[in-house]
């Protein structure tokens, strides 16, 4: 998929998702507000009925007007100015709220009208059924009073009425999550496709060049147009390009064997220090040719480890080879070892070009190469570090990278004694 198309899909999809979320949020809020108003209205009517019937029952006073006030979103106050019997009020409340299908817990308080002191207070769960019980209170309340009702769970009661809305919101959120997941998968797939294309490009380049060179050289020799002094050079070209092709073929064939389950380790006691010394000798010449330096500090007291010598040699070589290839001006490489925990740590540090933060997590991926466009300073297939990781993990070890762009990289290979 083209980058532009993908960007369009992400942009369009995000706009649609955002739009849907906004619309859903708006309607959810609106539905909640309507339910809230309905609740307030019903409660106020219920309280008004209760207040009126209490006043009507009090034969000692002339019927007066009662007022219901909502003091906060879930707190209602009824002004009666008559003596209120808690039991009667309680029963009336249960009855009125029950008739109106308000199944919410509430707290009830009766206050003296003259100084607002609390005379009676109780918490009543919605699950208790109402009963009118006119049992005589031994100490009836004779003070002129008002009462207040507080619904602590009003929000959840209203939310409970919005089940379908909440369900549709959850579905929408799931849809958004699925969209994000799909986009992330798409991006990952695209990255893999790009890596694959780069690899094929690279592979084609690495194979076509030696083939073209052999063809050119052999044709020139066949046509006898090369003078005898140059003929030797042309034969050498054919030979070296053939060798080059052989190496490339070997590398590609190795690809198939670097999956962990296919990697068969031939374990035996390996002296890591000897292995490093051997590798250092082979790479030292290349480093010196570039006026670089290789520093070796073998500090591990126990350098012997159970490992596959062949794969481990390749592994350390790959890291060293990278340190040499990706040097900045001239290679400056240090190799050190030390015993750590139950194993051995090999650190290979270079002062090379380093790896940008964004790419560090991909360097151990198969076929990944830090993108450089058509700049072709270092040739390769992006298999070296993937092989390193596979081999080290097959040894139950770890390999970690610390790198800073333009300052260099450090690879720490930890191998347990087992």
């Amino acid at each position, binding site marked *: 998929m083209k980058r532009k198309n993908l960007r369009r899909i992400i942009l369009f999809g995000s706009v649609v998702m955002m739009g849907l979320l906004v619309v859903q949020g708006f309607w959810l809020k609106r539905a909640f507000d309507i339910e809230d108003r309905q609740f307030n209205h019903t409660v106020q009517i219920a309280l008004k009925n209760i207040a009126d019937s209490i006043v009507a029952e009090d034969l000692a006073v002339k019927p007066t007007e009662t007022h219901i006030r909502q003091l906060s979103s879930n707190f209602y106050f009824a002004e009666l100015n008559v003596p209120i019997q808690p039991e009667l009020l309680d029963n009336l409340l249960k009855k009125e709220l029950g008739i109106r299908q308000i199944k919410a817990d509430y707290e009830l308080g009766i206050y003296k009208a003259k100084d607002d002191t609390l005379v009676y207070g109780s918490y009543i769960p919605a699950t208790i059924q109402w009963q009118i019980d006119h049992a005589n209170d031994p100490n009836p309340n004779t003070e002129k009073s008002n009462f207040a009702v507080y619904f602590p769970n009003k929000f959840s009661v209203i939310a409970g009425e919005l089940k379908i809305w909440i369900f549709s919101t959850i579905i929408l959120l799931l849809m958004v999550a699925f969209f994000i997941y799909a986009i992330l998968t798409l991006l990952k797939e695209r990255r893999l496709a790009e890596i694959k294309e780069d690899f094929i490009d690279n592979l*084609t*380049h690495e194979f076509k060049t030696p083939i073209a060179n052999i063809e050119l050289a052999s044709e020139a020799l066949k046509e006898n147009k090369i003078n005898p002094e140059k003929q030797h050079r042309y034969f050498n070209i054919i030979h070296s*390009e053939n060798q080059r092709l052989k190496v490339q073929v070997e590398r590609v064939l190795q690809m198939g064997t670097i999956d962990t389950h296919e990697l068969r380790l031939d374990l035996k006691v390996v002296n890591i220090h000897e292995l490093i010394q051997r590798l250092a000798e082979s790479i030292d010449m290349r480093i010196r040719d570039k006026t670089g330096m290789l520093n070796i500090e073998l500090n591990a007291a126990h350098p012997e480890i159970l490992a596959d010598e062949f794969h481990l040699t390749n592994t350390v070589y790959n890291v060293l080879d990278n340190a040499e290839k990706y040097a900045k001006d001239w290679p400056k490489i240090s190799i050190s070892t030390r015993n750590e925990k139950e194993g051995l740590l090999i650190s290979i540090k270079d002062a090379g070009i380093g790896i940008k933060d964004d790419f560090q997590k991909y360097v151990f991926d198969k076929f990944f190469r830090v993108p450089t466009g058509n700049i072709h300073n270092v040739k390769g297939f992006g298999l070296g570090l993937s092989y390193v990781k596979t081999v080290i993990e097959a040894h139950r070890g770890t390999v970690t990278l610390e790198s800073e762009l333009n300052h260099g990289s450090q690879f720490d290979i930890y191998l347990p004694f087992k």
Partner: protein
Amino acid sequence: MSLKYKLLLVEDDENLGYMLKDNLEMSGYAVRLCRDGALGLTAFHNEQYHLCIFDVMLPFKDGFTLAEDVRKYNQKIPIIFLTAKTRRMTG
């Protein structure tokens, strides 16, 4: 003696560069061979050429960028690209 056409060849592959240069010289051209894009641009500034042949994948400066740089100074010089790439669209 007739005028020799001068060619600027930028190719990082040692063998291919050598053989291209040799073949072109045998065909009567004067060839200047450079191993990377940066050296190629320096060579272009130092001398006058009739034709440029650039590999696409080069160290330090790729062939397309090199061609862009060359075009800033000379809009007429023909440029031929050499590539083993197979994709139509890259980058």
